C-alpha cells in the first residue's frame, strides 16, 4: 500500500494491520462471490436444463452451446460491465469530490439513448441508414452517443477547471439530449419498444465478442485510473493544496473524465442504461473499508462486477422463464441500499 513502510512499523501497528487485513478479506470475498455467481449462472437459466454437476462437466453438444456460448459470456460480460461502472463511479466520486456522484453525471446515459434512437430511426428511414445502422449496431450507436455527450459536456463547461460548471453542464446536456430523444420518439413511435428495452438495461445480448470489447476497455481504463489515483488522493486535500503539490488539475480531470466516459460508454453500449451500480459499488467500499483511491479503484470494480452479476442472475431467475430487465433489479437493490443508508444516518444523528 502507499503508506511508508518505515511508518508502518511505528504508530498504532495493530490498527493498520487490521486495516490491511480487512481490505484483503474484502477482496477475497468479492472474488469468491464472483466465482460463486459465475457458477450459479451456468446452472441457472431460462431453459429447463438439469442442474447436476455431471451435466456441467460433460454436457451434450446442445447444452454445451447454451453453457459456453450463452450463459458464460453473459455472466462474464455482466461482471465486466459492472466492473466498468464501478470503476467509473469511483473515479467520478473522486473527481467531483461527492460521494453520491455516479458515472452518468456527464450525460452519458442520455447520450447513449439518443445514439440508439438515431440508429433505430435511421434504419427505419432509408436503406443507406439501415446499412449504416446495422454495421454500427446498437452497441456502437450507444457508445458513440455516450462519448459524444461527454465531449459536449466538457466543451460546454469550457474546460474542466470548475467542478461545479461540469456538473451543471452535465445536467444540461442530459436534459437536452433526452428532449431530442423524446422528439424523435414522437415522430417514430414504433421504435419505442426497442428503446424501452435498451433503457431498462439487458444482459441478454452479450456474446463473446462483447466480452472482448468490455475486457479490452476494462484493461485500458483501470490501469491509467490506478496510476492516476494518487492525484485523486491529493484532490481530497482541496484543490489549492493539490495544485501546490505540483498537480495539473485540468489535465488530471480531463484524463480521469476521459476514462469515466470510455468505461461508461462501453458498459452502456453492451447492457443499456443500468443504474445504481456505479453509485453503490464505490460507496459500499468506502462505507465498509477505509481506503485510499488506489485501493478504491481496485475494490470498486470488483464490487460492481459482483453486483451486476448478481443482478443478472436475479433477473433471469426470479420470474423464470421470463426475464426482468436487469436495470430494474439494480434499481430496486440500489434504491434499498440508499434507503438503508438514510435510515442509518438518521438513527445515528
Amino acid at each position: 500500500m502507499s503508506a511508508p513502510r518505515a511508518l508502518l512499523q511505528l504508530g498504532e501497528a495493530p490498527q493498520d494491520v487490521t486495516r490491511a487485513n480487512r481490505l484483503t478479506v474484502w477482496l477475497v470475498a468479492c472474488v469468491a462471490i464472483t466465482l460463486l455467481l459465475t457458477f450459479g449462472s451456468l446452472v441457472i437459466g431460462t431453459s429447463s436444463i438439469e442442474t447436476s454437476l455431471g451435466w456441467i462437466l460433460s454436457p451434450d453438444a446442445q447444452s454445451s452451446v447454451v453453457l459456453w456460448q450463452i450463459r458464460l459470456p453473459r455472466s462474464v460480460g455482466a461482471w465486466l460491465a459492472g466492473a466498468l461502472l464501478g470503476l467509473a463511479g469511483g473515479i467520478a466520486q473522486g473527481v467531483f469530490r461527492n460521494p453520491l456522484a455516479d458515472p452518468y453525471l456527464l450525460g452519458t446515459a442520455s447520450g447513449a439513448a439518443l445514439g440508439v434512437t438515431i440508429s433505430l430511426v435511421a434504419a427505419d428511414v432509408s436503406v443507406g441508414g439501415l446499412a449504416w445502422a446495422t454495421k454500427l449496431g446498437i452497441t456502437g450507436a450507444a457508445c458513440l452517443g455516450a462519448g459524444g455527450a461527454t465531449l459536449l459536456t466538457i466543451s460546454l463547461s469550457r474546460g474542466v477547471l470548475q467542478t461545479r460548471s461540469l456538473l451543471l453542464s452535465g445536467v444540461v446536456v442530459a436534459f437536452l439530449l433526452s428532449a431530442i430523444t423524446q422528439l424523435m420518439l414522437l415522430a417514430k413511435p414504433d421504435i419505442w419498444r426497442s428503446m424501452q428495452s435498451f433503457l431498462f438495461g439487458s444482459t441478454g445480448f452479450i456474446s463473446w465478442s462483447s466480452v472482448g470489447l468490455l475486457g479490452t476497455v476494462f484493461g485500458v481504463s483501470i490501469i491509467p485510473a490506478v496510476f492516476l489515483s494518487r492525484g485523486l488522493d491529493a484532490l481530497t486535500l482541496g484543490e489549492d493544496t493539490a495544485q501546490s503539490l505540483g498537480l495539473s488539475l485540468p489535465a488530471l480531470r480531463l484524463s480521469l473524465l476521459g476514462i469515466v466516459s470510455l468505461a461508461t460508454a462501453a458498459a452502456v453500449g453492451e447492457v443499456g442504461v443500468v443504474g445504481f451500480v456505479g453509485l453503490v459499488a464505490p460507496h459500499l467500499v468506502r462505507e465498509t473499508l477505509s481506503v485510499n483511491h488506489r485501493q478504491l479503484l481496485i475494490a470498486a470494480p470488483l464490487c460492481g462486477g459482483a453486483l451486476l452479476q448478481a443482478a443478472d442472475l436475479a433477473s433471469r431467475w426470479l420470474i423464470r422463464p421470463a426475464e426482468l430487465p436487469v436495470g430494474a433489479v439494480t434499481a430496486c437493490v440500489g434504491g434499498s441500499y440508499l434507503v438503508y443508508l438514510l435510515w442509518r444516518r438518521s438513527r445515528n444523528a
Partner: protein
Amino acid sequence: MTAPLAATARRGAAHTGIVAALIASMLASPCGAARAIVIRDDSAREVRFAHPAERVVSLLPSLTEIVCALGACARLVAVDRYSDWPTQVRSLPKAGGLDDAQVEEIVRLKPDVVLLSNSQRIAGRLQELGVPSVAIDTQTFAHIGHSVVLIGQVLGLPEQAAALNEQIDRSVRAVSETARAHRHGAGPSVYVEVDRAPYAASAGSFIGEMLARLGARNIVTPDLGAFPRLNPEYVVRHDPDVIVVTEEELPDFTERPGWDQIRAVKEQRVCSFPPEVRYMIERPGPRVADGMQALEACLERAAP
C-alpha cells in the same frame, strides 16, 4: 404464375393419386434436395439454407399465422408467447416475447430458421450463435404479400405461398367490394385511437389501410406519420362519424374536454373489439380479410 396445386387436385380426381404423391414429396423432408435456398431478408441480409426449413421458430404472431396458413404448422417447434392462432400453437414451447426472446430455448431446439420481426434485436445474437434468422417487415398491407413469399421460400413452399397470396387478395377484394357497396356517399369519417395519449392510427398505418379499403375516411392523413400523437383538439375539430378503438380498455370519451361534442361520442358510434378480434385486426397476416370483416361489421352498425 403457376396454377395453384389445390386447383389442379380439384380438377382431376383421376390424377389424385399422382398429385397426392407430388404433394407428399413436397411436404416430406427432402433430405437429398440439392437445391440451396438463398434469400435476402428485410434487414438486407443474405441467408442461405441447404434445404427447406423443417424446424421453425416464430417470434411474431403474424408470422406464426402465415406459417400455419401455408400448411406448415407441424414444422413449428416454438412460438412467442403472444402467438395464439391457430389454437394448436398454444401448446408449443414458448420462446419469449417481443423484446425478451429466450435465446437458450431457441438454441436448444436447434431450429432450421427463426422468423422474427425486423425490429427485434435478437437477430444479431442468433446469427452469432449459428442459428439462421430471417427478419421480416410486418407493418403494412404490402408487407403481408412479401412476408408470405419470403416464408414460402424458406419453407420450400413457393406454390403454396403464391396460392395463399392469391387467396388473401381475393378475400380482401371481396370484403372491400361488399363494404363499398354499403357506403352511402363518401363513407363515414373515422378516428382510430391506439392509445389514450392520444395516439391515432393514420391512413398510412395498417389498420388505416384496412379502413380505407372498406371505404372509410380517416381523419388523420398519412403525412402525419403512421401513429401520430394528436392534439385532442384535432379530433374535436374533425368531428369523426365513428371512433374505432384498439386499446385494451375502452376510454370514457366524455371525460375529455370538448369531446362530448363529437358526433361519434354523442351518438355512441364507437367500435371496440374483444381481444381475439382485436389481435386479428392488428396482425398483418393471412386473416386480414377476417379482420376487415370484423371492422366492416362494426362500421355498418356504427356508421350514421
